[in-house]
């Protein structure tokens, strides 16, 4: 079974069971990783490396020294215990999907959250899930138990979009509530005032968290493919705008470019990792991004 087969986006879109979905993606992803430079993170993997000056002597395997009279450092014994807080935006705007057969932003975000939670559990990292829109809807603190994963996946499976996006409020609230330092993964379309959102993220930064921002956008939101006179209804505010696309497209694209650039620069300023996701792109990118970031944390 190839990786591409398992991560076929159209297939994944029709899997309703979140646990099965997460398992399918992660297993497929991991199977393709056997030559991955990130193999050192597996708890079942063992390797010896010759001691080099600077290495902590407590990591030297004395048994091997006894047998070979050489110093080797045993790496497989390095246990990880990272607490990852997955913050998922479930506002009304996240329910948007341009392709009726495709995934909405919320579904896409949920999928990422589920996969990462599953993956983290396998990596023996603890994962927690906070769902919010204008307020916090549910909050599952990071745990390493299998039942916790099931709980999280069930929560994601039953998730429905609703409410306005007001990221700054819930984020500040969460920043105050999370005591244990770890990784904060924000999955959202970030439809709020960028300055307020970045300010809230800085709140996490001040508390020593490592921050990943997964910005989920529908491909229609990125390309504005509308070509007829259209009356748009804002999914959150209900506001209506009758638009002639040929006139509005350049303005929309310019505004969007500024919006995305603002977030990208803002995240760079606070040393948060920012990644833009198109809901039509495969999910493995998200996993790769996580692994890359995780590797930096050692």
């Amino acid at each position, binding site marked *: 079974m190839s990786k591409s087969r398992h991560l076929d986006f159209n297939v994944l879109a029709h899997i309703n069971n979140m646990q099965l979905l997460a398992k399918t993606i992660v297993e497929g992803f991991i199977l393709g990783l056997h030559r991955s430079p990130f193999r050192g993170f597996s708890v079942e993997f063992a390797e010896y490396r010759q001691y080099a000056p600077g290495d902590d002597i407590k990591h030297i395997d004395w048994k091997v020294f006894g047998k070979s009279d050489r110093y080797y450092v045993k790496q497989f014994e390095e246990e990880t215990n990272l607490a990852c807080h997955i913050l998922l935006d479930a506002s009304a705007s996240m329910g948007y999907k341009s392709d009726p057969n495709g995934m909405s932003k919320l579904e896409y975000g949920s999928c990422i959250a589920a996969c990462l939670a599953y993956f983290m559990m396998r990596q023996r990292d603890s994962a927690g899930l906070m769902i919010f829109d204008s307020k916090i809807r549910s909050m599952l603190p990071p745990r390493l138990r299998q039942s916790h994963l099931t709980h999280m996946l069930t929560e994601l499976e039953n998730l429905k979009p609703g409410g306005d996006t007001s990221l700054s409020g819930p984020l500040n609230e969460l920043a105050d509530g999370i005591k244990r330092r770890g990784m904060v993964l924000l999955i959202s379309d970030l439809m709020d005032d960028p300055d307020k959102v970045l300010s809230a993220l800085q709140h996490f930064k001040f508390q020593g968290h490592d921050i990943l921002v997964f910005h989920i956008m529908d491909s229609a*939101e990125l390309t504005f493919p509308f070509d*007829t006179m259209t009356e748009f*209804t*804002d*999914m959150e505010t209900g506001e209506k705008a009758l638009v002639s696309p040929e*006139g509005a497209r350049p303005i929309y694209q310019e505004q969007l470019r500024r919006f995305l650039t603002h977030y990208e620069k803002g995240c760079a300023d606070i040393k948060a990792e920012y990644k833009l996701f198109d809901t039509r792109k495969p999910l493995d990118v998200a996993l790769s991004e996580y692994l890359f970031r995780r590797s930096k944390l050692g």
Partner: protein
Amino acid sequence: MPFLKPYFLMALAVVLIPLIIHLLTRDQIKKVAFSTVRFFIGTSRNILRKKKIREAFLLASRMLACAIIVFAFARPLFTKEKQSQSGRFSALKARAIVVDVSASMTGTGSTIRKKAETALNELVEGSDAAILVSFSGKPSVAGPSKEFAGIRSAISKLEPASGGTDIAEALRTANSILSGVEATEKSIVLISDLQRSGWQSFKGGWKLAPGIDLSIINIDPAISADRVAITDGDYPHNIVLDKIPRIVAAKIANFSDSPRNAVETTLSVNGKTVETQKTNVPAHQAVAVRFRTPFTNPGDNLGIIRLSQEDEKKLGSTFYFNTRVNPTINVTIVSQSGDNMGKFLSIALQPPEADSPFKVKSVNLQNLTAKDVNESGIVLFNNVDTAGAEIITAINTLLQRGGGIIYLPGDKVGADKFNATFAALSPARLSRIMTAPASDEQEQGITLSKVNVEHPIFEIFQKPHHGDLSGPRFTRFWELTDSQMSRVIARFSNDRPAFLERQIGQGIAIMMTSSVSGDWSNLVIDKGPMFVSIMHQIARYLVMRSEKKTDYCVGDELRLNANDQVSDPAGKKITERPVIAREPGFYMVDTGSEKISYSVNVMAGEADPVAMKQEEITMAVVPVKGENLDAAGDDVLAKEAKEKVDRMALWRYLILALVVLLAGELYLGNKTVRH
């Protein structure tokens, strides 16, 4: 606006095509729930408004473009006021039916209607164009039209009236209208008795446009040739009241082949028969009958000359006139004591033992009173340079009410005193006395030169044997200043003003810059008759300059003021304006301040039954094939042809406008995408 091919205008319906396309391809509004409208909510309204405006412009420009194309195909023409009655359109054939309904056609009504109807019936209604030009005096026009109902109606109303015949003018009108019609065949049918007197106005200088055929239907003259008629009359129009008998003359013509003896002609004035004369008139000749009668009634004197043996209503049997008599004019001659020239002036204006229209009173300056001025129509200051304030006020009043002042400054006048007294009431200020340069010739002095002989004072000297204006010699004259407000009506041979006039209020002040004294000129001594004539003419001019025209022909428009009340010869009040004289006789006009009678006669010569030959008219107005249109006589035609081309040039501008419009449409269309 007239069109060369008006049927193309039916295609104007194509302007609806852009509208239909617009409606069919209107934007179908799709409703979409979107994650956020924050990126375009602010601009969508502006964009939509701009889009709507652009689309409206586009739609309008496309509709306009379609309309312009249709208009261009219809070939619009510039409209000119003088041609507004004709219009211009296309037809297979075009025919102008020119019908003579002048007084000489009386009794031929049914015949001319029948002939006109026949000429009309030769055309095909709907495809051919017809024009009806009828004339009794000035031509009146119906059409051009392809619908003949209106033309038929106009024909059915044709009835000879009392107007005159002017065939040339009617043909010219028809030619002008036909020139404006696009047709493969053009023709004029003239229905007339071809009275020779009706061709008098033709002076050449124009011909029918090439391609216009002329056919003539000669109607037998309704006027019997076996008769006599008054064909002209002459009478004094405006005179001053005197007892001098005036000549009233009538021209009696005999149109028959045999002499007419003892033709009785009667003159009556103000309802009273003055005289009846018997005259022998040879066959085909005319004689003048002269009456001499004084007009002693101030105001209108209504006169009638009648052929007693002819029916009063018969054409040419009666001639109406009005002689206006102005009452005796009081002239006051003011001189300084010891100046004898006042006596000469008095004698000149009121010769002893002769009836004069002027009643002259000579007074010394010292004895002049305001009452003298107030009772005068004219005051003559002979060699006078001063007057009391009361006199000056009276003179000013006299001028304001329309009186006249004559200044004859001589050597007893001081320039400063004259200017101080009369400057505001005279044509100019006096500067100094000039002496004419010595001459080697036998006769000394300068003469009159650059005389405005059109001016009423000098017009009689135009006639032969009425005096040579260059005869009088002037040795001294006044140099003038400040004459800008005046009109110089005669100058000396050295170009200095000799006679000047200036309008002050309703009156006129006249100055002769040389004295009548023998030291100054030989006008009185050697040129006495001319002196008398000039003085009379000046006095008459000052009194009668505002007389109205009171003689008209049938068909003329009477000159009236807005509030004048008019009644026709039958006494019926006429309220419509303008008032056209329809019947011969006296039209009474009440201006509110006075009552005036206008005499109206049938055009002179209308009673003359002598007819032209058809060939004469044809040769006169139909151009010979290959005739040079640039010849002087065809200037009008060439001009009309040029005008025709110019008037048709409008379509070029339309095409230019279309190109500009389409360029704009292309630009806007590229900016406005429709889905």
